[in-house]
C-alpha cells in the first residue's frame, strides 16, 4: 500500500513535469505570412566586423558585400536573345558615371611620369548616392574615409590595401606609418634612396639628406634576398672586394658609404656568378639602421575631391583601368570596384579611445545594428553575434530606381543563422528552413546527382607540402629512423608519382577534381580576353613534362593532358630504389633504418585523417618491391594553430596546404611558392637556384627570385603586365611553375570544388559557374514561392523535402 503511494507520487511528479513541457511545447510557432521573398541561409562562423577599414576575414564580408556599392561592376554578358554568354562578362558603371585618366593634369604636381598613363584617375560619382538614413554621399566622404583608413593612431587592418599590392595610392604608406621607427630598414624594399639622393659629408661619408646614417650591409638579412645576407652570398661575388669590405665593416657588419666603398661594392656584384649587376643596383644593398617615417599631412596622400561628385586618385603604380578606346577594363571592377566609405557622424561617434595600457585607437563602427550604415542594396535589420543576422532592402539605394535593375533584386530579406554543426544545418535544409547548403561527404553519394545540386570551383589547389630543410630533417632523425631521404628530389618525386590524383579526390573529398599544377581553371593570365592559364599550351606542356607524359605522342595537347593521372608506380619505385641506394652508399641511411614520415595538421578531424590514411596506404604500396619495403612508416600529429609556423620551423615532414588569391595575376601568385616569406617550408633557396630561359628573344640566366622580380616589374627587367603583352609573359610564368613543381616540395593533389544544394524555393539565373559573376548572386536570384507559399509547400511536404 505504502509502495503504491510512493509510486503514485513519483508518477504524479513525472506527469507534472511532462505537462509543463507539453504546455510550453504547444506554443504555436510564429509563421511569416507576409508576401515577400526571404532568402534563408546559414554560416558556420558569424561575421562580427563589417567595417571596411578593419574587417578581418571572409566571414565579415558576408554582411559587408550587401552594405556597399561599387563604382564599376562585373555583369553577365547577354546575347541578342537575352541568354548569358558562357564565360564572358561586361564591366558597367554603377555608383560612378565616368572614369577619366588625368595623369597628364597631375603629373607635375605629383611627380608622375609626364607621358605616363594610369597614374591618376578622376571618378565622377552619381549625384543620387545616399546612406540608408538619407544623408547624401559626396566625393569628400571618400576622402574622409581614406584619412581614417590610413590613420596611424588606429593601425587599421585594411590600411595595407592601399600601399601593398596593385592599388598603391601616392604616399599612403608614408602617411600610415608616419612617426613609426623601423629598425634595419631595407632600402631595397623601401625604395627610399639612390646615390643621388644621399648627401656627401666633409669626411667623405654619404648620409641620408637629414644627416642620418645609411650603410652597405654585409651581415644584415635583406628582405629582397629572401632574408639572407650578402656574406652568405659572397661565394658568388668578387672575393677581393668582399675581403676589403669586410675589413672596413664595423661590428654590425655595416660599411660606411664612401666613394671607396661604392667602387668596391660595384666590383663585388659585377661577377658572372652574380649576374654582372651594375652600379644602379647598389641601393639594394643599403640598410638604414633606424628609420623614422617623417610626419605627413593628409593632403600629401593621393586622394582628394575635385568637386562634390568628382574624386581624384593619384597612384604610385600605374593601373590600366581604361582600355585604349576609353571603355572600362576589367581592372576597373577588379582593382577599383570601390573605395572604403564610412558614414562620418556614425564613425566619429564610435571611435574608441585606447584601452588602458594601449596606444592604438579602435572603432566599433559597423559591428552592430546601431553602429551600421549602408549605402548598398540591403541594410542591417538585426544582428546577434554567433547567432543570426537579418538584412532588408535599403529603400535609399539608388540602384532600385535604375531601369536595368527592373525585375532584379527580388530578395526582400536575408536571414542568416550561425550554425556550426553541419548536421544541424542539414535537417533545417531538408525541412525547408534554409535555402542552400554545401553537400557533406557523408551524404555526397545520395545527393551529388540531385537536380538541385550545383558545383562551384575555386582557385585553391590542395597540395602536399614537403619539408625542404635537410638540416631540420637530419636534426629529427634518431637511431634507426631516417628522414633525410626526403631531401632527395627523386624520393619526393616518387612520393608524388605514387598518388593517383583522381582516386584521391574521389575518395577523400565531396566533389573536388584531380589537380596537377600550382594553378587550376580559375587562374586567368589574360582576364580581359578571358584566357585561363591552364588552358594555354605553355601550361599544358608543363604538366606533361612534370608527369612524364610525352605530348608528342598524342594527336593534341589536350589528349596528352587528359592522359595525366599523376600516378606511375613503376617509375616511382625505380626512383625510390635509386634514392635509397645512393643514400646507402653515401652512408646517409643504414640497411635497417626505417623511414618515418611525420604528417601534421592544425586539427586531426575525420577528413584530415581520411586523407592521411589514403596517402599512407599509397606510400606503403610505393615501397613494395623496393629496398624500403616494410620500412616506410607514417605518423600523424596535431600541431594546433601553430601548424604552419611549426612546419616552417622544420618540426615535421609533410603538411597539406595551398594558396588562394591573385587568381587573375598568376605572375604575382608565384610569390607564394618562391618567396621564403610565404613558402610553406622556407629552406628552398630560390635566390640562388638559377634558371636559364629565353625571354623576348634573349637568353638570360638568373635566380628564380630574380626571374620573379622581373616578371612583376621589380627586377632588372620590367616584364610586368604593364610593360609586356600577357602572351609574352605567359611562357615565363609557365617556366617558373615548372621550376616549382620539379623540386617536389609542393605536390598538387586536387582542385577544390564544392558541391551544394539549392532549395526548391529559389533559383539562380544560371547553374554554369561564371568566374566573374558566380551564379549571379542576390541580384539575379529568383523565387518560385513567396514566404507564405513556401510555408504551404513545407506543410504539404510534412516538413521534409526530398532532394535526391
Amino acid at each position, binding site marked *: 500500500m505504502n509502495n503504491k503511494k510512493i509510486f503514485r507520487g513519483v508518477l504524479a511528479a513525472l506527469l507534472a513535469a511532462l505537462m509543463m513541457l507539453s504546455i*510550453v511545447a504547444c506554443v504555436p510557432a510564429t509563421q511569416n505570412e507576409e508576401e515577400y521573398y526571404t532568402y534563408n541561409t546559414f554560416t558556420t562562423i558569424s561575421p562580427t566586423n563589417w567595417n571596411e577599414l578593419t574587417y578581418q576575414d571572409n566571414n565579415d564580408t558576408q554582411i559587408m558585400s550587401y552594405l556597399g556599392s561599387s563604382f564599376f561592376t562585373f555583369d553577365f554578358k547577354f546575347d541578342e536573345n537575352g541568354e548569358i554568354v558562357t564565360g564572358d562578362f561586361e564591366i558597367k558603371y554603377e555608383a560612378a558615371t565616368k572614369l577619366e585618366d588625368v595623369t597628364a593634369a597631375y603629373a607635375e604636381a605629383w611627380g608622375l611620369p609626364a607621358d605616363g598613363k594610369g597614374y591618376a584617375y578622376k571618378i565622377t560619382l552619381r549625384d543620387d548616392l545616399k546612406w540608408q538614413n538619407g544623408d547624401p554621399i559626396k566625393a569628400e566622404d571618400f576622402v574622409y574615409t581614406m584619412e581614417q583608413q590610413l590613420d596611424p593612431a588606429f*593601425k587599421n587592418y585594411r590600411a595595407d590595401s592601399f600601399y601593398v599590392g596593385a592599388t598603391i595610392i601616392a604616399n599612403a604608406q608614408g602617411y600610415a606609418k608616419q612617426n613609426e621607427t623601423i629598425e634595419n630598414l631595407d632600402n631595397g624594399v623601401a625604395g627610399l634612396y639612390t646615390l643621388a639622393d644621399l648627401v656627401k659629408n666633409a669626411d667623405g661619408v654619404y648620409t641620408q639628406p637629414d644627416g642620418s646614417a645609411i650603410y652597405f650591409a654585409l651581415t644584415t638579412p635583406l628582405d629582397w634576398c629572401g632574408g639572407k645576407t650578402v656574406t652568405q652570398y659572397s661565394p658568388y661575388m668578387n672575393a677581393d672586394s668582399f675581403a676589403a669590405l669586410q675589413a672596413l665593416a664595423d661590428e654590425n657588419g655595416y660599411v660606411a658609404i664612401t666613394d671607396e666603398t661604392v667602387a668596391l661594392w660595384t666590383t663585388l656584384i659585377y661577377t658572372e656568378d652574380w649576374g654582372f649587376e651594375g652600379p644602379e643596383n647598389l641601393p639594394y644593398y643599403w640598410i638604414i639602421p633606424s628609420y623614422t617615417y617623417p610626419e605627413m599631412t593628409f593632403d600629401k596622400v593621393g586622394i582628394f575631391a575635385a568637386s562634390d561628385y568628382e574624386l581624384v586618385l593619384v597612384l604610385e603604380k600605374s593601373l590600366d583601368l581604361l582600355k585604349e578606346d576609353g571603355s572600362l577594363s576589367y581592372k576597373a571592377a577588379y582593382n577599383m570596384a570601390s573605395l572604403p566609405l564610412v558614414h562620418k557622424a556614425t564613425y566619429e561617434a564610435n571611435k574608441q579611445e585606447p584601452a*588602458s595600457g*594601449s596606444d592604438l585607437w579602435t572603432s566599433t563602427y559597423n559591428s552592430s545594428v546601431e553602429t551600421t550604415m549602408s549605402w548598398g542594396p540591403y541594410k542591417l535589420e538585426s544582428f*546577434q*553575434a554567433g547567432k543570426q543576422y537579418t538584412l532588408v532592402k535599403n529603400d535609399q539605394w539608388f540602384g532600385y530606381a535604375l531601369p536595368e535593375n527592373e525585375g532584379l533584386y527580388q530578395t526582400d530579406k536575408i536571414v542568416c543563422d550561425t550554425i556550426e554543426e553541419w548536421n544541424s544545418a542539414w535537417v533545417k535544409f531538408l525541412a525547408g528552413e534554409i535555402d542552400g547548403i554545401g553537400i557533406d561527404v557523408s551524404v555526397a553519394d545520395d545527393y551529388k546527382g540531385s537536380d538541385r545540386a550545383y558545383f562551384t570551383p575555386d582557385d585553391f589547389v590542395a597540395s602536399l607540402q614537403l619539408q625542404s630543410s635537410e638540416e631540420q630533417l637530419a636534426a629529427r632523425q634518431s637511431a634507426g629512423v631516417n628522414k633525410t631521404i626526403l631531401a632527395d628530389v627523386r624520393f619526393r618525386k616518387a612520393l608524388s608519382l605514387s598518388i593517383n590524383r583522381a582516386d584521391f579526390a574521389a575518395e577523400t573529398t565531396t566533389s573536388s577534381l584531380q589537380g596537377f599544377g600550382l594553378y587550376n581553371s580559375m587562374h586567368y593570365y589574360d582576364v580581359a580576353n578571358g584566357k585561363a592559364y591552364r588552358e594555354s599550351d605553355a601550361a599544358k606542356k608543363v604538366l606533361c613534362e612534370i608527369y612524364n607524359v610525352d605530348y608528342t605522342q598524342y594527336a593534341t595537347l589536350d589528349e596528352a593532358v587528359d592522359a595525366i593521372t599523376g600516378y606511375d608506380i613503376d617509375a616511382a619505385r625505380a626512383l625510390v630504389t635509386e634514392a635509397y641506394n645512393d643514400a646507402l652508399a653515401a652512408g646517409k641511411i643504414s640497411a635497417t633504418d626505417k623511414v618515418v614520415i611525420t604528417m601534421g595538421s592544425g586539427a586531426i578531424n575525420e577528413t584530415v585523417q581520411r586523407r592521411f590514411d589514403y596517402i599512407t596506404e599509397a606510400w606503403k604500396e610505393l615501397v613494395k618491391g623496393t629496398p624500403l619495403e616494410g620500412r616506410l612508416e607514417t605518423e600523424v600529429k596535431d600541431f594546433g594553430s601553430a601548424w604552419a609556423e611549426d612546419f616552417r620551423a622544420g618540426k615535421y615532414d609533410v603538411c597539406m596546404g595551398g594558396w588562394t588569391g*591573385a587568381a587573375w595575376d598568376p605572375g604575382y601568385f608565384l610569390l607564394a611558392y618562391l618567396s621564403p616569406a610565404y613558402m610553406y617550408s622556407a629552406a628552398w633557396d630560390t635566390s640562388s637556384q638559377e634558371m636559364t630561359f629565353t625571354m623576348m628573344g634573349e637568353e638570360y640566366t638568373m635566380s628564380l627570385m630574380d626571374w620573379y622580380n622581373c616578371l612583376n616589374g621589380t627586377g632588372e627587367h620590367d616584364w610586368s603586365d604593364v610593360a609586356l603583352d600577357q602572351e609574352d609573359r605567359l611562357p615565363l610564368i609557365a617556366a617558373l611553375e615548372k621550376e616549382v613543381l620539379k623540386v617536389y616540395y609542393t605536390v598538387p593533389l586536387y582542385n577544390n570544388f564544392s558541391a551544394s544544394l539549392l532549395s526548391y524555393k529559389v533559383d539562380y539565373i544560371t547553374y554554369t559557374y561564371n568566374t566573374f559573376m558566380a551564379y549571379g548572386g542576390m541580384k539575379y536570384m529568383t523565387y518560385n514561392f513567396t514566404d507564405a507559399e513556401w510555408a504551404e509547400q513545407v506543410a504539404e511536404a510534412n*516538413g521534409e523535402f526530398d532532394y535526391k
Partner: protein
Amino acid sequence: MYMFKYICKRVGLMLVIFSIIFVICFVLIRLVPINTSVGLGQDKDILIAQIKDRGYDKPIPEQLVLYIQRIVKDGDFGRAYDKMPNIKMNTPVIDVFIERLPPTILINIMSSLLAVPVGIALGIFAALKKNKWQDHVISTAVMVIISVPSFVYGSLFLYVICFKLGILPKEIASLPAIAKQYALQYIPFTANWDLYFNPTMIKSMLPAVLCMSFGSIAGYTRFTRAELTEVLTSEFMLLARTKGLTKSQATVRHALRNAMVPIFPSIIGEVLSVLSGSLVIERIFSIPGVGALYLNAINAQDYDFFMLLSSFYLLVGLAAGLVIDLSYGFIDPRIRMGAK
C-alpha cells in the same frame, strides 16, 4: 565559532590556490608563441603593431603586472584577439562573456530542475523495487544513457523529435527575433535576461534542456538508488519499523534523509558547474553560449579570453568545493566542519 574560523581558513586557502593557478595559467599560455603569419599582400607591420599594443612583446612578468593592474584599476579584463570565432576583435572579453552566460545558465538550470526530481524519484522507485522488473528496466535505461555520448543522443533528439516529428524547434531563438516578437529591446554585450523568459524562447531551449537532462537523470537515478538501497538495509531502519513507523514513514523520514547526505552536495556541485556549459549540446542546437568559448580561446591563442575563462572556472570550481563541504554540516547536524 569553529565554523567561522573554518570558513575563513578555507577562503584564505582558496585565494592562495587561485593565485598560484592563475599565475601558472598566465605564464603557460604566454609561453605559446602568438601567430604572426600574414596572407599574400598583407603588411605584417600592422599585425606586429597590434601585438605590441597589447604588450605581448613585453617580458611575461611585466605583462602579468600590467594585466592585474588593468583589472584592479579599470575592471578591464582585456580585449578579444583577431582569431576568436564569432567575436569582433578588440571587444572587451567580459562583455562577450556576460552576453553569452544567460542561455548557458538557463538551459543548465532548467535541465537540473528537471533532472533532480525525476532522477531522484526514479532512483527511489528503483531502490524500493530493488531486483524487480521495474528496477531492471530503470537500471538498464540508466546504463544505456550513461554509456551513450551526448553528441549521439543530441543528434538523435534533433533528428527524431525536432526534424521527423517536428515537435520542437531545431535551434534556440535569436534574441533580436524575440525582442521584435515581444516588443522588447535587445542590447548587444549585455545579459538581456528579459528576453529569455517567454514561451518562444523557453520552447526553443527545450531540446537542449532535455538532452542536457538525460545524463543527469541517469546519474541521479543511479546514485539515489545505490545510496537508498544501502540505507534501507541499515539497522536503524529496522529500529524505525520496530518502533511503529510505517514503511513509507520510515523511508521518507529516515532513509531518504540519510541517503541525501551524499546526494545533495552532488546537486550543488552540478548546479555550480552549469556555468561551464556544454560544448556539444550548444553546437548541435546552435546556442550562442559559453560552452565553446574556452576551446576557441585556446585554439585562437586569445590570451585575454583564456585568462578570464580560466579565472572564472577556477573560482567557480574552488567555490563549489567549499560550498559542498559546508553543505554537509547543514544537511547532517552530526557533521560540524572544523570542530575538534
